[in-house]
């Protein structure tokens, strides 16, 4: 009898291979592994896991189907609530959402809900089970700005209700952060493409190379293009820097730039015309998932990589799994450390980064311990590249060209809890509202806004 307090392990690509390969790291469950894991679900009465899911997937129901080997039915349950199960199964922080509330988790490991979600979505894709029936059109036109998680979720839910939906994307490939941000080894681009193709099969149109706020203004979407409602899911695009000396040196990049060159432009491939700086010694500043992604990309380009973070390991905002994967790949963590300046050589390239030791004090506004500098503790690290993964702020292109659209001080678009903005029939969600957050929270916001758009347009 298997130990039911332990979750079924998922196979990983060997760490040595990973150092040079962009292939996916986590390999997913086999059918028998999935069934074994699904059988761990107690199908408890209150199913607290569902409350932990931002899109409210009926988790016990889909898991019960997996336990019975009925994967097609499991997929149907998933697709009632989520438009991107193969994505969410991979990149959601399940440990702080659904799995956090799993009753199994009280004594032992929570049921591996995320891995099961991924398994079902992958099974469906491999068996090409997507039954697409285009819903009957309801005659209403809605524009969605941005093809990232919130926009795709909003578009999907609207399309299923019969809306004529067009998604506008500024870049040449749809997917938003799923395409330009999250690396191949964590989220293969073929999966993103498959999910987006499924959306198009529902009748959603995607227009790339259109920068709303520049190419077309929000007001023009109503006046010139005849849309009745607009959802803004333009993301948190603007990278932050530290404002320390040396940030303009050659070899200092925002994580967004470094990741975009690799993920969106394929600069790691020799056939790509897009250049990428291939560091020998790289320092990544920050402790979130984006920092892990940048560090692991730099590793795969052949660099010796250090992550510099000003708090301790316990406060790292990245998912534990990502931190572990980074460590397995030989990435070194310099904790309680904060950069103070970057030094360059005579040609303007990065030569070293000077850091200061930190100690933790009382909790700050975010509830995390506030880091303090330790005097006379500066030390220098040799590096030819520094990647700043300090978070992003909402893109101002739309707010600055849309009269009457109110924004918060940090740049986020003001909305109520269902996504309504200060402008009639304009809705918003995802990072454009909250600032940088997670894929699934953005999807939840897109889904909520879709329901509200439906309510508003139908009551007209």
């Amino acid at each position, binding site marked *: 009898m298997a130990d039911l307090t332990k979750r079924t392990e998922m196979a990983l690509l060997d760490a040595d291979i990973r150092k040079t390969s962009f292939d996916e790291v986590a390999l997913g469950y086999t059918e028998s592994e999935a069934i074994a894991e699904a059988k761990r679900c107690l199908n408890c009465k209150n199913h607290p896991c569902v409350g932990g899911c931002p899109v409210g997937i009926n988790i016990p129901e889909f898991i019960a189907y997996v336990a019975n080997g009925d994967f097609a039915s499991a997929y149907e349950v998933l697709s009632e609530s989520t438009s991107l199960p193969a994505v969410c199964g991979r990149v959601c922080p399940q440990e702080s959402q659904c799995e956090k509330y799993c009753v199994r988790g009280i004594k032992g490991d929570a049921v591996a809900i995320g891995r099961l979600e991924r398994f079902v979505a992958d099974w469906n894709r491999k068996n090409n089970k997507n039954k697409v029936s285009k819903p009957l059109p309801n005659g209403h036109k809605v524009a969605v700005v941005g093809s990232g998680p919130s926009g795709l979720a909003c578009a999907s839910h609207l399309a299923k209700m019969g809306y004529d939906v067009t998604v506008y994307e*500024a*870049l*040449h490939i749809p997917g938003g952060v799923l395409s*330009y941000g999250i690396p191949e080894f964590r989220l293969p681009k073929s999966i993103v493409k498959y999910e987006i193709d499924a959306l198009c099969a529902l009748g959603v149109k995607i227009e*790339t*190379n*259109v*920068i709303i706020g*520049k*190419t*077309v*203004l929000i007001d023009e979407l109503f006046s010139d293009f005849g849309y009745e409602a607009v959802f803004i899911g333009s993301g948190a*695009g*603007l*990278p932050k*820097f530290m*404002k320390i000396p040396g*940030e*303009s040196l*050659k*070899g200092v*990049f*925002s994580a*967004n*730039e470094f990741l*975009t*060159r690799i993920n*969106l*432009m*394929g600069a790691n*491939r020799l*056939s*790509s*015309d*897009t*250049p990428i*700086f291939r560091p020998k010694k790289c320092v990544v500043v920050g402790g979130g998932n984006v920092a892990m992604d940048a560090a692991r990309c730099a590793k795969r380009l052949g660099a010796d990589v250090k992550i510099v973070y000003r708090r301790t390991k316990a406060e790292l905002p990245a998912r534990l799994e990502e931190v572990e994967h980074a460590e397995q790949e030989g990435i070194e963590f310099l904790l309680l450390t904060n950069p103070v300046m970057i030094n360059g050589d005579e*040609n*303007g*390239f990065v030569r070293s980064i000077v850091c200061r030791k930190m100690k933790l004090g009382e909790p700050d506004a975010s509830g995390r311990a506030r880091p303090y500098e330790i005097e006379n503790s500066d030390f220098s690290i040799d590096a030819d590249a520094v990647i700043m993964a300090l978070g992003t702020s909402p*893109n*101002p*292109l739309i707010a600055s060209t849309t009269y009457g659209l109110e924004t918060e001080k940090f740049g986020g678009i003001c909305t109520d809890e269902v996504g309504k903005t200060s402008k009639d029939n304009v809705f918003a969600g995802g990072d454009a509202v909250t600032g940088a957050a997670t894929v699934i929270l953005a999807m939840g916001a897109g889904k909520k806004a879709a329901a509200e758009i439906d309510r508003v347009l139908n009551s007209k």
Partner: protein
Amino acid sequence: MYKILKKEYLTQTVIRITVSAPLAARRAEPGQFVILRVCDDGERIPLTISDYDREKGTVSVIFSACGATTMKLAAKNEGDLISDFAGPLGKPTDTDGVKKVAVVAGGVGCAIAYPVAKKFKNLGCTVHTVIGFRTKDLVILCDEFKGVSDVFKLMSDDGTAGERGFVTAALENLILGGEKYDKIITIGPLPMMKFVCAIAQKYNIPSVASMNPIMIDGTGMCGGCRLTVGGKMCFACVDGPEFDGSLIDFDEAIARLSIYKDFENKKREETCNLLGGIKNG
């Protein structure tokens, strides 16, 4: 995909293409740019808009076939398609409160300067233009500039076209001759713009330089195009591309432009071999 409707050689290596891009043409203004990608696996490059026709839905750009991507673009002919063409991006040229302007441009920068000069002319401003080239074979848009200029100076480094000398000298002569400009706008190679802005500052004339740093998305997302302006970090794609010339850290911008030099040389070589004779038009 976006169709090339027209292709004209302005010199042996400087080409104007007119692309069918109705959405980009709708709101295009002088001073703004587009980002294009020639083919799959292609690089995204920013090119400033040189002309547009809203009714026909076309946008023209002028480029010099000097790198891998521009050489691939140069190999395309009328009727051919390019993968992507997105815009307009950046802020349009600010014409507020200007009655008399000097437009000072060099090399391919003249392609960008021309619509700016034209816009000022159409608004009823007095327009003086000073344009410079290395030699007569590189001269572009001479007649077009004459058509929109109250005073027109053509300069060349070797004296084979117009007067011999740099644009900075010609500009300074105009100022010393008593011309009073509300603004000097400069577009061209970074060292040229640096010296034009220095002259503007010497005579206390407001100046604006159009910056063209390395860029990927053009929407503020990557921060690769960052510049230091007045001690503050700015993104050329969303805050610019035009900035107060007295505040730009030109030396830093010049240094940043060379980060991918080795890669660019290698790719150019590869592309030359691939395209063979096409490289010389």
